[in-house]
């Protein structure tokens, strides 16, 4: 009966209820699109960053991340690798040796990042093979190296030329070697394109005098939701005195920070959107209350408890807000699913302009449940706060006065 009463009261002023419900729906739709796009682009950025290099998690010798030297490398334990490989959520593990050396050819010398990789496994994570623009990609046992295009042109080198690498190896050993260029890679990010040298893991281990050691084991994880469970699981399995396990949040702190800053601006926009909608909702609640004071007076006179009447009015507001939220979600969801599956790629000049900043020229959408839950909460909490007004009016209503004044 109470529900029936509330339900019918909503439809008393159809036009007003319709306007209120639709404005809530619109706000929800707008908010959902905004958030879905924003979070979608974050997810994409994180995914790109993870796919681009770091992976979703990494295992190192304890202390490596803070002090990235070869002395903080770890023993390459193939049983550990196959154990991690077999873990739920883990696609593959990617062992690496990462260090620096001076690269020179002829009269030119430049600092370079030297990476020792397992070509097949590395390919699973970074798809580095697709960056090859000339020559031949690394295979197990190859003694040659791949060099990034920027570095190659700085050193004026081509396929078949011999590169000199000179640096410091494990425990201050001298690292020096002569390597034939067997391929050239072009990376989209300048910092990477200007200074990368890629070789087989065993070659790097030999160069740096670190037989059977690696600096990091990167993990390809099936979905970003699996990262935290995998990290926790690993931390339990591994001796944390000897190893450290880092999730992507720790691996890409700058990215996370810039996402968080951007996210604040998104939230501020949402706040203003909801502020506007809040005023609209309050207007409705205000009118709904004012024009029914006489009726409230009659109901209290004939013996209806204030508490019960407050329930009815509260239900009305909750129902309206709920309908608004549900309609909004129902309308937005199919579109969001569509865009989630089919990101909107830009083309033409605007795309080029965006790509100059090293960002993909596309809109990606997220279907993270949190987006939907948050909008629902925002509206319901607002209804709850605004709903205090009618509840207060009913609480304080003097029936005789209310009926006399109307």
């Amino acid at each position, binding site marked *: 009966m109470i529900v029936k009463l509330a339900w019918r009261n909503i439809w008393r002023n159809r036009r007003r209820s319709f306007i209120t419900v639709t404005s809530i729906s619109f706000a929800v739709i707008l908010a959902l699109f905004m958030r879905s796009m924003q979070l979608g682009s974050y997810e994409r950025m994180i995914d790109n960053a993870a796919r681009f290099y770091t992976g979703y998690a990494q295992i190192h010798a304890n202390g490596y991340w803070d002090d990235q030297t070869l002395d903080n490398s770890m023993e390459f334990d193939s049983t550990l690798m196959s154990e991690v490989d077999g873990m739920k959520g883990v696609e593959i593990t990617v062992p690496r040796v990462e260090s620096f050396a001076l690269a020179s050819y002829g009269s030119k010398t430049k600092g370079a990042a030297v990476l020792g990789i397992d070509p097949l496994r590395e390919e699973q994570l970074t798809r580095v093979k697709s960056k090859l623009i000339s020559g031949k990609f690394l295979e197990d046992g190859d003694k040659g190296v791949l060099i990034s295009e920027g570095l190659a042109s700085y050193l004026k080198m081509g396929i078949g030329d011999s590169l000199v690498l000179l640096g410091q190896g494990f425990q201050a050993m001298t690292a020096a070697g002569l390597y034939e260029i067997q391929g050239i890679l072009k990376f989209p990010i300048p910092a990477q394109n200007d200074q990368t040298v890629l070789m087989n893991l065993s070659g790097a281990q030999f160069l740096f005098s670190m037989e059977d050691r690696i600096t990091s084991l990167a993990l390809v994880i099936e979905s970003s939701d699996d990262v935290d469970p995998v990290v926790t699981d690993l931390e339990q399995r591994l001796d944390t005195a000897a190893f450290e396990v880092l999730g992507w949040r720790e691996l890409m702190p700058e990215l996370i920070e810039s996402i968080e800053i951007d996210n604040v601006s998104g939230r501020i926009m949402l706040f203003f959107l909801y502020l506007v909608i809040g005023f609209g909702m309050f207007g409705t609640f205000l009118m709904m209350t004012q024009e029914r004071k006489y009726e409230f007076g*009659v109901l209290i*006179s*004939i*013996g209806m408890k*204030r508490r019960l009447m407050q329930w009815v009015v509260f239900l009305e507001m909750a129902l309206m807000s709920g309908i608004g939220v549900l309609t909004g979600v129902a309308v937005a969801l199919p579109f969001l699913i569509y865009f989630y599956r089919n990101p909107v790629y830009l083309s033409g000049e605007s795309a080029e302009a965006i790509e100059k900043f090293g960002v993909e020229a596309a809109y990606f959408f997220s279907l993270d449940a949190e987006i939907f839950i948050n909008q629902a909460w925002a509206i319901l909490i607002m209804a709850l706060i605004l709903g205090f007004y009618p509840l207060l009016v009913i609480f304080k209503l003097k*029936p005789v006065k209310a*009926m006399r004044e109307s």
Partner: protein
Amino acid sequence: MNIIEAKGIEKVYDEDKVPVHALNGIDLNITEGEFTAIVGPSGCGKTTLLNILGGLDHPSKGIVHLANTDITSMSDSHLIDFRLQNIGFVFQAYNLIPVLTVRENIEFIMLLQKADKVERHLRSSEMLEQMGIADKASKRPSELSGGQQQRVAVARALASKPKFILADEPTANLDSKSTAQLLDIMAEMNRKEQTTFVFSTHDQRVIDRARRIVRLDDGIVVDDHVAEHA
């Protein structure tokens, strides 16, 4: 037995610091089964008195006993419950809940009293029959004439079997035919169910139907007599 006992009732409204003396010491007893009119010119205090007798407003001075209960010191929520269980109200207009059907309106107080469904249905059917509006049971109040709406209001008040019914100018908005019909019904229910009615009016045709007439002027009782036809 007295169902209403009011002693020394005074009411001063001090709106904006200019006190209005609406009631100036009223003693009034109503016994079970009465059919009494409170009459007098506009502003004499009829509404104020009925509100105080119904526990809707507190007197500035004096004591009200209803069904042997002192209501003057009752808390707001106790009073609401007391009204629910004991008093039926009919107001001048707009008594009904617009979104409920006629039948639902009649059952509403019984519902608040937590009467069960079957009982509610039987009683509301009986009331609809008595009021001659059985065919309107599933209509909304706005689809009814003013007279029919007031009959629904009386039906709602009666359905819950209150100790007495207070009606403030129930016929003020009605034409003479509807007025006569409503009074017929009230008189009939008063006779049949022994329900006590106290109503206010300044309409002579209504006064003529009352069995006891209490006349107010300037907030005091100036006349109180039993009608000759009674």
